[in-house]
């Protein structure tokens, strides 16, 4: 199954793309997806987990694990501080 990943701000710079499609084994969870993202884009480790991670536009707490299904959309949103 495929899920869509949106990268915002610094995560987009680190991943080098604003969105990506990730293919996962059926039954995979958000934890598995995060592991795969860090393997595919090791530069994301620089964020040290300091970002908002959302599934279908709902916030997931750090460490929270949710089942995924095909077509789900997750977003990586690190804080920005400029103004």
């Amino acid at each position, binding site marked *: 199954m495929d899920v869509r990943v*949106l990268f*915002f*701000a*610094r995560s*987009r710079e680190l991943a080098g793309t*604003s*969105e990506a499609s990730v293919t996962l084994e059926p039954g995979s969870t958000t934890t598995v997806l995060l592991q795969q993202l860090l393997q595919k884009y090791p530069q994301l480790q*620089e*964020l*040290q*987990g*300091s970002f*908002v991670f*959302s599934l279908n*536009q*709902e*916030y997931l*707490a750090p460490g929270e694990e949710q089942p995924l299904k095909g077509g789900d959309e997750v*977003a990586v*949103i*690190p*804080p*920005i*501080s*400029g*103004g």
Partner: protein
Amino acid sequence: MSSSEELQRLRAENEALRAELAALKRSQQPPAAQAPAAAPAANGGGAACPAFAPWDGMHHGLDKEQISRYSRQIILHSFGVQAQARLCRGSVLIIGAGGLGSPAALYLAAAGVGRLGIVDRDVVELSNIHRQVIHKEASVGVHKALSAAEACRALNSSILVETYLEGLKPDNAVELISEYDVIVDASDNAPTRYLISDACCVARRPLVSGAAIGTDGQLTVYCHGEDGPCYRCLFPESPAAGNCARCVDAGVLGVVPGVIGTLQALEAVKLLSGVGDTLSRRLLAIDCAAGRFHSVKLRAKSPACIACGTSPTITAATLPSYDYAAFTGQAAANDAAPAPLQLIPRGERITPRELQQRLAAEPGALVLDVRPLEQFNICHLPGAMHTPYKYFDRHLDAIRTRLGASAAAQPATAAGAANAAAAGDTAAEQNGTDTASSPPFYVVCRRGNDSQRALAALRRAGISQGIDVVGGMEGWAREVDTSFPTY
């Protein structure tokens, strides 16, 4: 009830009583004694028509001029005269008169918010104005809070605009924030963002938080209602300093803070007027390059939060001594230059003036410019090799090749070294055996920090004959060539 809430309640009660009194006076006074604003008909040749007291059955307290000025939003079906009256009685503190604060302050002044506070501590620079549209060319060098206040008063002379020129600090934050109904975070750095959020938790004030960098923006309302989360609930750990790019380093497309600051004004209007749904418990992230607006539903505040949880350790008593610089690893700096790095000993670096002398004495000497491409493209020294620090590892082989070519092309290296010594440098003898095999080369960046980091990386890679230039291209523009553009 805290004293600030009591104060707020009394203010509201006072306003309501004043409105009632004004309405009573209007209904009892003879036409000749009416306030000028309420009796234009008497001056307009309508003396034959007896003036009558306008009926303010809603006790909104707005006068004729206010109703005229704000009429387009007063007649809006979902807004109305009471919502406008709440704006006119309300107050907003805008922290930062920059890219976000500019549109926020202008729209809130125009909308008739009765009292605006503007906090900043910088002066206007020419490089601010592409996004900080509240300031004018003539305001360059003027304090930002004063410049912004003047622009607000020019838009709307009927509101009160207060300025705070010292910036927000832990020892004044709670007191200042307590004096306003709604707080707008239009600041530009992580320590100030945590300070504002913490102070809003302590003072129980809703916080409209906006941020923008590059082509990205973020917006949310924190500390609102009983269960609205704060900035710390979302980001309990401060992001690494390297991930908090500043406009001065990373750049920002001017209209992006314009979009976010305008949305901040909108959220403040909704909070004050009570009209509409605010972005409390929702985070809006926008990617202006992709044209994507993405909204994320947030959780209620975290019980474990040290600022707004069930047993907070950040309180009115502890906040003033909290070390925000230590927590975030960053000073509350803004567009100022970063502190000079001392990675390479001063004796192993040369000044821009010395660089000029050496380049004159060593034709063809290699200059590595490690600035990002966008900055390199603005202007660079003739013949400089572009090896951006961000991708420095990728350039090591090319640098080796180029140095090898230089060594082959300049067998009389000793002459180069002698010239360098004659130029009065202090770094000629520090390069050991490598200096004998190839001529020295020079490393420059914008201000002299990244060039030291690049030089350290070169030395780790066994390339040791590089010499750092103190102050980088900004130093070159100051000391050698004043026509060299700075940015």
